């Protein structure tokens, strides 16, 4: 497929794509293999995957996070999620997609597809309309900043949040997406990131940590209890994230094929194991298995399997899920307390840590001997080699992301300030920022 220069490709998905290609050979032989043609089955699946990933953010993340804050801030979290969905939608078609997926720069794309110029209903990306590929990618660009909201909940100004995450989506997300998926240097380097372990989760989690540190703690943290308003919302959000993640991971096969099927199966398994692992650890160490724990564990497993989805087998999924559940439990429950940063809803603890666990283990369990589809040829098919490549990807993402986030936040702070007043924080953001409240 490397000979076809037009459609954006996922080098991270090299093996998956090769696989699919071989699988489809008979049918391709019937059609003309030289010119790409639209496949209705692939297109159907990608249309659905796009809907599923949108559902992850609204209502998924909105409910997942909304249920975890205090009653007075429920609507503010939902509003932030909803507004970011809308804002990134516009930014993406205006310039984001072009920056991420056009051109062959090592670090960033170009402006050739501003306002999606040149993309019509008949333009294809592989076997699906490019419009579908673009919208599918848009839903990834939406959920990534939406995840960051978890770190800054209950204390950031709405206006500052919009500026921060809007700028972040163009200055941090788009370049990283380009580097890993859009033809940039990490892609060339052989990094395996099937569905966005680095681009989405590590990226969101690190930005969340930086933002949490720069904002400071919520007033009263550690002194007053801050009980989640409604864990039924959180469970519903976690469940919709889980269901939507099928679109996220199996959709990243960009077609309805065996790789998609494999990706869906390992996604399910990792989520289930990680939820049981978190729940079990909680039960053993803190006395009770909680619904919040299970939900968090499931998300941790989903995060960790994301980079690995198309590459590993069932054994790998079980191992990755188990480790992600245990490690993220420890990060969110113990490490956070010890270090004392206020990552309110654990975007860092679950997404960055889970993403790192997953990204590194992808380099292990993709190995054929461990039931995977194989390691990158750049790694000479050695696990250590692949681990090194994966580490570079992770490391670079962390550094670039941390610096970018810091600079953007400094700028926004200087221009309009990041944090609401103490009084507004006390009274709650629902009333003070949005003039609304839950009446039930």
């Amino acid at each position, binding site marked *: 497929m490397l000979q076809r220069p037009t459609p954006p490709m996922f080098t991270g998905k090299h093996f998956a794509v090769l696989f699919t290609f071989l699988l489809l050979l008979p049918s391709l032989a019937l059609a003309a293999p030289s010119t790409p043609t639209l496949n209705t089955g692939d297109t159907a699946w990608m249309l659905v995957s796009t809907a599923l990933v949108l559902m992850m953010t609204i209502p998924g993340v909105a409910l997942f996070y909304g249920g975890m804050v205090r009653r007075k801030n429920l609507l503010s979290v939902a509003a932030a999620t909803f507004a970011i969905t809308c804002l990134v939608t516009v930014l993406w078609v205006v310039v984001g997609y072009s920056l991420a997926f056009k051109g062959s720069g090592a670090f960033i794309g170009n402006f050739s597809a501003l306002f999606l110029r040149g993309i019509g209903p008949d333009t294809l990306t592989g076997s699906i309309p490019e419009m579908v590929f673009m919208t599918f990618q848009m839903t990834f660009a939406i959920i990534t900043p939406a995840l960051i909201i978890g770190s800054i909940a209950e204390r950031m100004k709405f206006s500052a949040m919009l500026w921060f995450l809007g700028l972040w989506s163009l200055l941090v997300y788009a370049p990283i997406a380009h580097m890993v998926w859009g033809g940039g240097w990490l892609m060339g380097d052989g990094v395996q990131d099937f569905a966005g372990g680095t681009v989405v989760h590590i990226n969101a989690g690190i930005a969340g940590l930086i933002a949490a540190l720069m904002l400071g703690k919520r007033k009263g943290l550690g002194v007053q*209890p801050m009980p989640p308003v409604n864990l039924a919302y959180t469970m519903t959000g976690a469940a919709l994230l889980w269901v939507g993640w099928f679109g996220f991971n199996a959709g990243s096969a960009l077609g309805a094929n065996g790789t998609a099927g494999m990706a869906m199966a390992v996604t399910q398994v990792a989520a289930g194991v990680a939820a049981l692992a978190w729940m079990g650890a909680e039960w053993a160490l*803190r006395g*009770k298995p909680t619904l919040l724990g299970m939900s968090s564990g499931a998300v941790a497993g989903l995060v960790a399997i994301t980079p690995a989805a198309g590459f590993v087998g069932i054994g790998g999924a079980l191992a990755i899920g188990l480790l992600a559940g245990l490690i993220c439990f420890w990060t969110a*429950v113990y490490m*956070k307390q010890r270090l004392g940063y206020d990552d309110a809803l654990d975007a860092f603890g679950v997404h960055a840590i889970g993403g790192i666990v997953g990204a590194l283990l992808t380099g292990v369990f993709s190995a054929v001997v461990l039931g995977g589809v194989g390691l990158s040829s750049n790694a000479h098919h050695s696990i250590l080699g692949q681990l090194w490549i994966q580490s570079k990807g992770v490391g670079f993402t962390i550094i670039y992301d941390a610096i970018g986030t810091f600079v953007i936040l400094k700028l926004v702070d200087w221009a309009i300030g990041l944090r609401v007043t103490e009084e507004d924080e006390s009274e709650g953001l629902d009333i003070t920022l949005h003039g609304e409240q839950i009446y039930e």
Partner: protein
Amino acid sequence: MKLLIAIIKPFKLDEVREGLSALGVQGITVSEVKGFGRQKGHTELYRGAEYVVDFLPKIKLEIAMDDELVERAIETISSTARTGKFGDGKIFVLPLEQVVRIRTGEADIDAI
């Protein structure tokens, strides 16, 4: 006239109400409150945070009544609301100077 305020365990409400009805009490005002006292609270868990919730759900009854009913009402409430465990609650008796029934304008004993 007196205003009795009784704090009881929530699941005892129906029993107490029936007891009072049997006594001839025709009106009660009830509210959900939280009680802090000798009864120990429960622990809640939220990821990193674990804390004891000291305020436990209780039901507060307010009942206006004629002086002569007070003794029997206290007895009835005590016996129906008692489980013998911490947290069974309290009964407070306050002086009540005047009562008006809004619908009719009747006053005092007639209004109860």
